[in-house]
């Protein structure tokens, strides 16, 4: 199935005190906002110290999704968790920079493994 034809899905997995949120398919606005709410709740419920947002299955990030990611990072920080965005595709990164959305406030890692290492796992 092509990315866009998969319904937007996000899965949140807890490993110890780290939450891993995997974005899949073509995420629509509602799914992105739902992810923000779910993650905030899970951070508090599990007293997570780190959140990894895994983007390797996402083929575009527009300004709306970009802002949601920045919001998740800001909210998680206020709740005491550190956020790392991992696995962004090169074409997506190039597009975000040209769009003017560099997400300077968000920590990044090239893949999940390095993201988890940054979060101390």
């Amino acid at each position, binding site marked *: 199935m092509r990315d866009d034809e998969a319904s937007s899905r996000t899965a949140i997995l807890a490993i110890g005190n780290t939450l891993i949120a995997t974005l899949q398919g073509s995420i629509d606005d509602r799914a992105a906002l739902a992810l923000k709410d779910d993650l905030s709740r899970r951070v508090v419920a599990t007293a997570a110290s780190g959140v990894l947002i895994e983007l390797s299955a996402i083929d*575009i990030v527009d300004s709306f999704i970009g802002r949601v990611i920045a919001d998740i990072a800001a909210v998680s920080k206020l709740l005491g968790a550190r956020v790392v965005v991992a696995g962004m595709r090169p074409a997506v990164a190039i597009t975000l920079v040209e769009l003017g959305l560099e997400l300077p406030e968000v920590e990044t890692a090239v893949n999940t493994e390095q993201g988890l290492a940054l979060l101390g796992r």
Partner: protein
Amino acid sequence: MVSDSVRPLAREAQVMPIVSDHDVVLVRRAARELAEEIGIGLVARTKLVTACSELARNVLEHAGGGRASLAVVSPDGARRHGVEVVFADDGPGIGDVERAFERGYSTKRGLGLGLGGSRRLVDDFALSTEPGEGTTILIRTWA
């Protein structure tokens, strides 16, 4: 200053309504399929699809809805192919076009990164708007 002329090359286009956030996803998908069909490379394709997402969302947020018309165009016989997308709405129009292109102008008002961001993502960009008369934006990416 306000209006570049919007002159579509397409004689026939696939017209898609934009009335919900799911329609934004459908327009993205249709643009990607046309881009793949004519062999636009991954980076240019990602930029085009992202620009479609931004502009379709603008239509939704600022005009309450509208439509996108998508087509493959080849102006010089079969030598060159491009994807052309025209976004049109009957909304309030854009009062201050120059400002709408400024970086960050509209981020606080939910317009994403304004039109400037989208313009940087495609090869051709033209806009026509009048207050009260709606807005039409044409974009093209060449293979």
